[in-house]
């Protein structure tokens, strides 16, 4: 597997009401690492898994930063699609970006 595909991408997933555990179980079965189940589900997985399950597309992007370089690399995909099998369980996905240290 190319090195880029192994890079972990983290996300916070909102499950549909009352389906948190079911959603977490399903994601785990698909190979996602589930770290915590609460108001949102914290997960991470290699890019390759996001591609295969959510048809995620990644492209090099930069986000704004007040640091010396002015821009920081973004790890989030530019698009994704919730598969039909997960649609009854998931309400939304947001991808996590690293914070800046102050």
């Amino acid at each position: 597997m190319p090195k880029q595909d192994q890079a972990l991408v983290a996300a916070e997933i909102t499950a549909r009401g009352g389906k948190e555990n079911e959603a977490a179980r399903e994601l785990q079965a698909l190979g996602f690492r589930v770290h915590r189940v609460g108001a949102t589900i914290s997960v991470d997985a290699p890019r390759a898994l996001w591609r295969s399950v959510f048809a995620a597309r990644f492209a090099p992007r930069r986000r704004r930063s007040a640091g010396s370089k002015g821009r920081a690399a973004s790890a989030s995909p530019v698009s994704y699609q919730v598969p039909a099998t997960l649609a009854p369980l998931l309400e939304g996905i947001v991808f996590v970006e690293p914070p800046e240290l102050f």
Partner: protein
Amino acid sequence: MAKRTRKARKTRQARGAAVLRAGDRVNAEVVLCSESGDSMFAAGAVVSADNLERYKPPAGRGAETARVLQELGFRVRHIGTFSISVEAPRALWERTFNTRVGKASQPLSTTHPEIGALEYWSHLPDTKFELPRTLQGLADRAYPQRPPILFQSALPPRVAYHHLEVPADVAMVLRADGAHRKGVTGRGVLVAMVDTGFYRHPFYAWHGYSYNATLAPDATNVEQDANGHGTAEAANIFACAPDIDFVGVKMGFNATLAFKTASDLEPAVITNSWGYHLPGITTLPNFLKPLEAAVLEAVNTRGIIVCFSGGNGHIAFPAMMPDVVAVGGVHARPALAGNDFVLEASNYASSFDSLIYPGRHVPDVCGLVGMQPGALYIMLPVPPGSAIDAGVSGGTHPNGDETAGNDGWAAISGTSAASPQIAGVCALLKQAQPGLSPKLAKAILRASARDVTIGASNNGQPAGPGHDGATGAGLVHATVAYELARSVQTRALFTLPPPR
């Protein structure tokens, strides 16, 4: 000049860890023969406080042996009770004792081998060693000494420019000493910090602090802090609240997960010296909504006081959330103005009005932050050779901190330092008044702050009399804040005070 220094450092790093050469000199300890005839090297001999006298040489033997060694060409460094410290060129050592030594090396620090290694001369195994006739009856044995592994000092290096040290200077300038004198030190209060890692720097052990660390589920190696940020900034909390129980949560990639991990511990206070830069944005990006929810839950459901750094020129989230204590920066000059130091808004720290949360101004209150260009202001403990230690090392202040890049200390600040300072003050308030709500804690911090009237923030907002754009309510006054908090009587809504 600074550029040349940086270039040289990069070249050194590219070449790999430096090795300090042994030269031609053997450093050794020559052990004296005892008066009793017993040898501490005899099979089964155990030296203890009870039998130490048994291995003591007679009066005068040390001086006599030193004289012989000197005549042989050795440099005598010290005559001790049991042994003499000497140096000799390798050839002299080998000729005198009819032996051979070989080069060996060891890392300067086993936890940070990347810092470099030190070479030394060592006795080769299975090589003969004979005392010369002139030393027989005087010296029992002689051993080349290997250098110790260096542990970074619990004391900061001395530098000549104006800076603050932890804990004393920060506690004094933030007026925390008065509360400490009254026994209010944060005892019994759990404070959590989410950051890059929490290295076991001797600074924490020597001060006897309760310094603990745990991992966010996606992080590894809890005590490793390659950056140095968490290790450094935690010292600011202890300056204000030395007796807190501290838990650092090392973040992995997902800062939201790390924050939730801290919140799950239900500490009284969580401090965060990080955030996201959101300039010109009127709605919160979706990717930050889980973090927003986690912060709201921590403050409003769990009653945790959550402090966030206001940023260093950043338009910082979550500092801009109305629910948190947003911390800005004030610089205290060494000069006095009346009964306080000359206080000015730090031109390194942020101040702004949020477009996402209308009516919300950052900061609420301020801690201590240096000035541009680099805010090199507070001498803080860092892992030796970490990114911060090496990154600000050398140079001339204010372009470098004038300390070594591997000494485990760095003069830094930013609102990263200010937020944990305020978190420490919050811990004092929670000790005095455990039921204090996050909202009331913030109101007390603001009500007791010292007005800062000069300077301007990184974002250009000026300070002035009263609450102002650059510093909010001003620089925290820990003792007055405690005095306000200790008399608060929390009561249920709509309950009238009892008649007097």
